[in-house]
């Protein structure tokens, strides 16, 4: 069994990470009733005997759980969020050595995060990453969680990404990036996001973009549903994807509902690597199947069902509904419409009591409605994991490599250009050592060429592409 390390950077990264660890514990305690440190648990947690001071690791699976430690590195250039974690119920999960904090913050400035803190904390970060890696028996994947709009997550986060590539070139890098809403209160967020985008495009294996606005919409929709109280639409307690009930954290904080969605995304993406199933899907299969060209590695996630109704009458229809929903606009974690854009590839990661025939039926049913690029008409990757998420009988995570990410990127570029034309706030960036005006131009042209690559693929949509002429064999 392989292990993964979560690297959470900045305020948003740490808040999401915190929800992830809570829900991961909830999930494992639900599946693993005996308190044995098993293979599944080992993928995100170490088992440590705290009574022994040195070398107190009892990472061998099969023994009793002593004290679980998260395979995580927490980085923030303020102390607030990390301190809160240390005072909260999850504090036992982290050693003080897993934390890297500063006091002054990055001031919503990508350059400060990337260059100033990047060089100041480089050694310390690399040390922590190495230590986390050494605790793994077979390290497969780094999950980086950060936001794009601020200074630390976006600047230092992408610096960490580069360090990961330098230090661990063989280990897969999956980045969860939270994109700012258009009405973001951070004025410089377009700069930060575009500067970060270039790093993501060049150094990540896969990026799972998540937009704040979509998370807000999903949360509102679920709250509306659960209050409408129509007969037959009573939502089962604990089952909504935004619910953190059953976790160790008590009262819900403002962003918890939104962060729970992202945490669930990470749980579902790793479920097939942790638990058994009739069609396993390992983490290294994600990039292999979904990334046809190295730069086009932005995978739009959607999660279904968002909640489970208490009334269980027509399970088959509900199962099919789950597949239909995964392709609808209001289940995507960014504001995008995959059905009306072009699919390069699509993964369906199913959990729970679902058989291969259910998968086949639904793929056959949905295929005619979904435009796929001409050379990948059957671009489906599927995984079946037998352990469902807590509170559900089944669930589906769809990852779409789809040109529908383009509008988000174009909007970002527009907002960037508006600021850049006036050179607004630029001096804050140019003060920073390592930052030059050229960085802005390069980041912009990297984004533009990415958009162009998606446009070229989009242009092939609805056009009948002839099959490539086959090789002829002389007879």
């Amino acid at each position, binding site marked *: *069994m*392989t292990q993964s390390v979560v690297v959470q950077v900045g305020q948003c990264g740490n808040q999401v990470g915190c929800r992830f660890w809570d829900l991961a514990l909830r999930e494992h305690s639900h599946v693993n009733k005996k308190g044995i440190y098993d*293979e599944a648990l080992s993928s995100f947690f170490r088992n440590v005997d705290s009574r022994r001071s040195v070398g107190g690791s009892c990472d061998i699976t099969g023994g009793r759980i002593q004290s679980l430690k998260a395979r995580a590195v927490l980085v923030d250039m303020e102390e607030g969020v990390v301190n809160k974690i240390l005072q909260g119920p999850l504090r036992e999960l982290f050693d003080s050595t897993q934390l890297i904090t500063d006091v002054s913050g990055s001031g919503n400035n990508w350059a400060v995060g990337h260059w100033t803190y990047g060089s100041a904390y480089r050694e310390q970060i690399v040390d922590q990453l190495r230590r986390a890696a050494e605790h793994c*028996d*077979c390290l*497969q994947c780094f999950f980086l969680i950060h936001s794009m709009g601020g200074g630390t997550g976006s600047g230092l986060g992408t610096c960490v990404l580069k360090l990961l590539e330098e230090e661990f070139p063989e280990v897969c890098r999956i980045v969860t990036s939270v994109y700012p809403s258009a009405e973001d209160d951070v004025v410089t967020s377009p700069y930060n996001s575009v500067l970060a985008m270039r790093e993501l495009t060049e150094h990540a294996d896969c990026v799972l973009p998540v937009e704040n606005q979509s998370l807000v919409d999903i949360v509102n929709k679920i709250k509306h549903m659960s209050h409408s109280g129509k007969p037959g639409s009573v939502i089962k307690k604990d089952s909504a994807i935004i619910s953190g009930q059953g976790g160790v954290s008590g009262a819900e904080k403002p962003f918890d509902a939104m962060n729970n969605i992202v945490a669930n995304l990470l749980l579902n993406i790793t479920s097939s690597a942790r638990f*058994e199933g*009739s*069609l*396993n899907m*390992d983490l*290294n*299969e994600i*990039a*292999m*199947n*979904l*990334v*046809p*060209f*190295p730069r086009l590695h932005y995978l739009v996630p959607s999660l279904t069902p968002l909640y489970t109704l208490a009334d269980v009458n027509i399970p088959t229809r509900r199962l099919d509904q789950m597949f239909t929903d995964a392709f609808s606009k209001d289940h995507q974690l960014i504001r995008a419409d995959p059905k009306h854009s072009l699919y390069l*590839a699509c993964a*369906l990661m199913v959990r729970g009591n679902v*058989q*291969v*025939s*259910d*998968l*086949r039926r639904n*793929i*056959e049913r949905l*295929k005619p409605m979904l435009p796929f690029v*001409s*050379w*990948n*008409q*059957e*671009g*489906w*990757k*599927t995984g*079946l994991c037998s352990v469902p998420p807590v509170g559900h009988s089944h669930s589906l995570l769809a990852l779409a490599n789809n040109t529908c990410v383009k509008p988000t990127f174009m909007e970002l570029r527009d907002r960037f250009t508006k600021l850049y034309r006036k050179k607004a706030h630029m001096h804050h960036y140019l003060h920073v050592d390592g930052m030059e005006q050229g960085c802005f131009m390069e980041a912009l042209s990297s984004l533009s060429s990415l958009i162009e690559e998606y446009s070229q693929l989009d242009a092939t949509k609805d056009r009948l592409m002839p*099959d*490539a002429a*086959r*090789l*002829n*064999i002389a*007879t």
Partner: protein
Amino acid sequence: MSIVTVQLGQCGNQVGQELFEVISNDANDTQRKVYSECSSERFFNETANRELVARSVLIDMEPKVISQSIAKTAKSGKWRYGDRSHFSQKQGSGNNWANGYCVHGPRHEEVVMDIVRREVEHCDCLAGIMAMMSVAGGTGSGVGTYVTQCLRDEYPNSFILNHLTWPYGTGEVIVQNYNSVLTLSHLYQLSDAILVHENDTVHKICAQLMNIKHISFRDVNKVIAHQLGSVLQPALTGDSHGVYNRNPIGELMSSLVCHPEYKLLSVCNIPQVSSSSMAYSMFTWPGLLKHLRQMLIANSKMEEGIDWQVRAPSLQPEGIERTRSHRRPGFNTSLANLLILRGKDVNNAEISGFQHPSLYTPWLPADEAFSMWKTPVPFNKYEKSAILVSNSQTLLRPLDNMVGKAWNMFASRAYIHQYTKFGISEEDFLDSFTSLEQVISSYSQL
């Protein structure tokens, strides 16, 4: 004589386990001691305390499937895998043939071959080696190809049969056509024969003949195991004078693979019914064989939905070469067929319908193209059953589709970077495409 099985990857390991399950049940069911002893010798190694240990090597680059198989079989109590005959790693091949073939295969060659050698040494007499794998993923296809290559080097004089599971046309692995093309083109140089099961076909059998509502991979694998078992269990060959055939793999090859350009084999069987309707079904040999013959010539893999309009072409007078225009639409030309009959009254079965020269390619005499094995022992609870192993044009269309889709993807160079990373170049791809186009061309000219 004994067969050593090598199970590779998730699919190979799951199908392999079902195969041993079917064989052990079948051998246990029957009262015929000679048959069951012959079967046991073939597939199992009997320990001093009379335990049956499968002559099988389990290989995966990921631990979950193998540990599940071992646990499951240990629980069943009927048979088990050898204590030291499995090898797994922690991290899978990630659906990447190149990763399996260029990295994992060479890295673990020594350990894997040691296990195989040990298993071979347990056999009094080795009939051949059967490597079971899928072509879609990374471990079965990539490591499987590499291991087959090692087997070929280590056992140059043994028969090597590859059993391949072809993926669903849509939706298992996106790069499945690349992986399939690389696997098949390499195996074509290494293997003596390649026996193919297509998931799509077997899935249809589960849905239409077995009436299974929620078809799982287990159901699909069971059907594959049933068909494979019915080929490999003991039977009497034409010249064995009442003694069970000693080397099913060697005899399979001498019956079916007479030319190195043609080594793709497929299987179809009749009857195939759900266990609940078995008790109410009556079958006669003429009825079964009439259907089976039409399944063969109309190229349908199951009893339901056979096209009865397809007829064998009339034979041309000697000296006039048969050309494309003389061929009937939908007619499936065979190079060679092996018919295996199991069960009651086999000696009364009339099989001349399979011997007619019009079914076969003109350059091979029909008496060499057709062979038959039979045994009065019923197989796997079926009172009568007929299995046809065929070297014919059946796989032409799926192969052509597979190559066509991979070629289309290759034309846009999509996903190629994932393979070059591990040392498979564009030229390697081109070589593989060329050799498979050659196979397609050969089969279409039968």
